């Protein structure tokens, strides 16, 4: 896997012609850096999936260009796009989209075979990834025998099998319960931070904000507000950098969910590391902040 940058440059997608034309995405620009997790949120019909599809070379923009490390995807011939999708992108879908007739190992290995790997090598690689994702005991199970979380882990394994630079996930937690959703989020974060892959997620799920480096709000096909997230060093909450309390010290910038956390942080520094920081006053602050900031993560 090479570290690739995906550039979306003034992209517009229009369906239909004349009076019946519908513009799903309007003049959107975005750059996704290696190892970055970008979350695209927005109401239904806002153009999220259309944008994701264009980023994954599933759809061509009407105008504008999408570059993958300098290569203009939007200008490639149709016959070259499948190979790009196979090698450079890993797709994760809400409905898992596993092939019902194949075992989970075959589901994963098949995508590797399509990319040119020999059967045995593909199977070995699929086995290794699935085992790493905790599915080692279920390699020969059919998808129908798995829980939703397990299916999504298979989908993640399939997305990773060809060692892509970018993972594109469309509502990856939508069909999962809270616990499994968190598990999947942790996995996605690990993929980005430990493996250096870029992850673009389209979702309605507020919980995913916790793992995102950047949150984009898409509405009527346009980004309305670009939110960058940071982690409060005291309580561990995800906070939007534009709204959070900021403190710059010794060339480092920190963002806090409240003045209390900032004061505690400053107090901790002043106390010369003598304070027990295991909890960091997190529990007390949470009792205060939870009613105020219900949308944020619970640490």
């Amino acid at each position: 896997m090479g570290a690739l940058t995906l550039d979306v440059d003034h992209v517009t997608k229009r369906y239909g012609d004349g009076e019946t034309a519908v513009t799903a995405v309007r003049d959107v620009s975005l750059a996704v850096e290696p190892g970055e997790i970008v979350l695209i949120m927005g109401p239904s019909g806002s153009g999220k999936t259309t944008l994701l599809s264009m980023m994954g070379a599933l759809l061509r923009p009407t105008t504008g260009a999408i570059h993958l490390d300098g290569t203009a995807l939007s200008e490639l011939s149709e016959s070259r796009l499948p190979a790009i999708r196979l090698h450079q992108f890993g797709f994760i879908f809400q409905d898992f989209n596993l092939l019902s007739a194949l075992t989970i190992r075959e589901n994963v290995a098949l995508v590797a075979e399509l990319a040119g790997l020999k059967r045995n090598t593909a199977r070995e690689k699929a086995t290794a990834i699935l085992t790493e994702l905790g599915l080692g005991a279920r390699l020969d199970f059919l998808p129908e025998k798995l829980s939703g979380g397990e299916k999504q882990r298979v989908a993640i394994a399939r997305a990773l099998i060809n060692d892509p630079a970018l993972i594109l996930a469309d509502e990856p937690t939508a069909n999962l319960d809270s616990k499994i959703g968190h598990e999947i989020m942790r996995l996605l974060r690990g993929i980005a931070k430990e493996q250096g892959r870029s992850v673009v997620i389209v979702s309605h799920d507020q919980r995913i904000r916790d793992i995102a480096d950047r949150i984009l709000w898409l509405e009527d096909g346009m980004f309305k507000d670009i939110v960058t997230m940071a982690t409060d060093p005291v309580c561990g909450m995800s906070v939007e950098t534009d709204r959070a309390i900021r403190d710059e010290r010794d060339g480092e910038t920190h963002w806090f969910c409240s003045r209390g956390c900032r004061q505690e942080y400053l107090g901790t520094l002043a106390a010369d590391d003598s304070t027990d920081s295991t909890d960091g006053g997190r529990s007390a602050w949470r009792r205060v902040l939870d009613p105020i900031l219900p949308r944020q993560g619970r640490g």
Partner: protein
Amino acid sequence: MSATWLLARRNLLRNRARLVVSIGGVALALTLVLALDAIFEGVSRQMTSYIDRSGAEIWVGQAGVRNLHMVASWMPDSVTDDVLAIEGVAAAEPILYTTDAISAGDERGWAYVIGLTSTASMGGPWDVVEGAGQPGPGEAVIDRRFAQRAGVGLGDQVTMLGRDFRIAGLTEGTASLVNSVAFVTFDDFAARRGGDPVVSFVLVGTADGVSPDAVALAIGSRVRGVSVQTTEAFAASEKRLGLDMSGDVISIMNIIGFIVGLAVVALTVYVATLALRREYGSLKAFGAPTGYLYSVVLTQAALSVVIGFVAGIAVTAALSAIVPRAGVNLELAISGESLVKVGIVAAVIAALAALLPIRQIAGLDPAVVAREGV
């Protein structure tokens, strides 16, 4: 095992319901086609079974007579000696022949009645399953199935040629959809005709190493007032007449069955492919080339046709064994020509049927397929 073969095979075999629908639909459709073809072939064979099994190599009949069905052939009995005198003729066997009603109990049918000499080496019954193969005076050898339907057996009476005969033997394979073959003595037959010194046909056997065609030609040129044909030509003429009379109906049934069967094959393959459109669409989204999707669908279609075809042959073969035992004068004969024809056409139809949905998949937006299904 390639990725194509793996997915095609698993798609077909993994889901039991899908397997039953796909293979069962194709198998039943091809059974219909094969069975109708087999009936057609069987009826064709039955038409000429007596000629084919007569043991003769050449048939000599009254001038102008070129088949058995619905003809009267009478020649002076001296023709037998005339034929026997021809070089290359090893044996000449006269028979008397007519088509007549045969009845026993409440059962009535039509029969080719054959009058055999007591020393006949040709033209007699070929598969005697009960009793004697050679009728004696006042006796008849008749078809077993007719006897079964009539509820009669050895020693019982059967009526034909305007008199009663005692059943001396029962034969197998001497019945068709329209008639059976019954054998009486030459003398009994001749007596019913008033004792005229005539024969209907002379069955000829040729000497070793002699061409039947050459002998037939020699007989035709040296014996006057006769028509001479090799058994092969005589049978072909008989079959042509039979098919001219009843073949159109059978052919139309066969063609309709063929069209219906292939339509079912096409529909079955089409539905089986459509059922997996979403999965094929997902593969496309992940980057599977369109050619791969085509090969998977075509392999799956081919596989279902091959398995369905084999199952169809098995069912048709079973029918061909069961039907004759059910007391029906029907023979199902599976010919190699029919297998090749049905196999090739079924494969082509299946491929076309598979290409319809796959063309749609190839044209689908993979983003929509992956997200919303199709």
